[in-house]
C-alpha cells in the first residue's frame, strides 16, 4: 500500500486484483444495474488510487477502507438518483422510492462466505432485515424504519445490536 501511496502503478495493479471483485460485488448489490455498476466500480477504484496516500493503517485494514469507499460511493449514487427521480416526478413518496419487496428480494442474496452466511442467520429477523436493507439495500435507517414499519429508535439499536452480533460471530478484531 505504501508503494501504491507513492504512485507505484504496478503495486496498484496487484492491489486491483484483490479488491476489484469485492468492489464490483458490493456496487452491483447496492445499485442493481450492471452498466451503471461498472462505471461506479471504476470510479471507486480510481478513488482508491487517488486517496491511497491518505490511507491510515491505524484506522483499519486495506479491504475495510476500500469497501467503505465503495459502499459509500454506491449509496451516494443510489440516493442522488432517488432524489433526481423524486424531483422529476414531484412525488411525496421520495423516501419510498423502492418498495420493500423489491429491495428484500434483492438482498436475500447468496452469500459466498459460509461464515458470513452462518453469522447472518444468527441474527434476529429484525436485525437481519435492518442490516440487509441498510447495507445491501443502501437505505438510510429512516428508510429502513419506514420500510419495516418499525420505530426509528428500534431500528437504530437493531442495526447496532446486529453489527455487534455479527462482529462477535465473525471474530472481527479491528
Amino acid at each position: 500500500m505504501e508503494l501504491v501511496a507513492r504512485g507505484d502503478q504496478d503495486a496498484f495493479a496487484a492491489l486491483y486484483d484483490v479488491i476489484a471483485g469485492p468492489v464490483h460485488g458490493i456496487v452491483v448489490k447496492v445499485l442493481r444495474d450492471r452498466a451503471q455498476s461498472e462505471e461506479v466500480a471504476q470510479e471507486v477504484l480510481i478513488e482508491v488510487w487517488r486517496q491511497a496516500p491518505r490511507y491510515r493503517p491505524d484506522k483499519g485494514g486495506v479491504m475495510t477502507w476500500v469497501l467503505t469507499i465503495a459502499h459509500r460511493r454506491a449509496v451516494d449514487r443510489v440516493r442522488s438518483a432517488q432524489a433526481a427521480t423524486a424531483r422529476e416526478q414531484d412525488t411525496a413518496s421520495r423516501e419510498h422510492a423502492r418498495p420493500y419487496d423489491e429491495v428484500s428480494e434483492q438482498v436475500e442474496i447468496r452469500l459466498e462466505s459460509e461464515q458470513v452466511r452462518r453469522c447472518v442467520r444468527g441474527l434476529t429477523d429484525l436485525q437481519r432485515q435492518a442490516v440487509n436493507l441498510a447495507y445491501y439495500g443502501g437505505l438510510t435507517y429512516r428508510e429502513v424504519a419506514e420500510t419495516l414499519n418499525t420505530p426509528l429508535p428500534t431500528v437504530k439499536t437493531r442495526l447496532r445490536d446486529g453489527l455487534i452480533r455479527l462482529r462477535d460471530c465473525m471474530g472481527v478484531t479491528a
Partner: protein
Amino acid sequence: MSRTGTDSQQLHALSGAYALNALDPGERDAFERHLERCALCTQDVREFSATAARLGSAVALPAPPGMRRTVLARIDGVRQQPPARRSIVALRRRALPLALAACLAGALALGGAALREHEQAQRTAIALQDLTAVLSAPDARTVTTRPGSGMTGKVVVSASRDRAAFVSSGLPAAPAGRTYQLWFADGSVMRQAGLVRADGATVLTGPVGRATAVGLTLEPSGGSEQPTSPPLMLLALGL
C-alpha cells in the same frame, strides 16, 4: 442526566447506522464531530466497518473483463492526494507489510485462476489473513537478497508469530512440469515450506521454528520431499 449526556448517548447509538452508511448527511456530520471526541465510538466504528466490509466481501463478483485495463489506463492521468500530515509516521511504519499484502493477494488471485471463484476468494482471504498476521507483527523483519538476473527475493519473518512469508519480484514462470518450492533450513536439514504458485508473496507453510534460512528451489510439479536441485536463493534469517 444532562442534555449533553443524552445527546452524546443518542449519538453513540448511531455508530451502527454510521458504519453502514445509513445516516442522512446532517446526522453523518454530527456523528463525525462526535467521533473526534469519543474513543469508544471510534473503536465501535472501526469494528463495525470491518464487519460491514466482511458483508461486502461476501458478495464479491468477478470484475467485468476489460475493467482492469481501463482502470489501470485511467489512473495514469490521475494525481494522488497528498498524505494527511499526521499519518505519515504511521504509514511509514506499517507500509512495507501492507504493500506486500497487496502483492500476495495479487499473486494468489492469479495463481488460483483455475479454482472456482468462491473457493479462490476463500483461499485468498485465508492466505491474506495469514500474511497479514506475519506482516503486521510488531517484530516483523525483512531479509532481502538480490541474486542478479533482475529477480529479487525477500523473506519477512516474525518470531512472535513463528511464521514467515516469501516475496519475490521478477520471478520467471516455472518451466513446464516444474514448480518453485520453498524450504526452511534447519541447519543442514531442509524442511518443506510450500510451493510458490506465482510471482508475488506466499506465506511459508509451517512454523519458522529453529530455521536458520529459507531456500527456494525448482522441483518437479507437485513439489518434492527433499530438494532435488541446488537452491536458486537462500536467505539467511540471522536469528
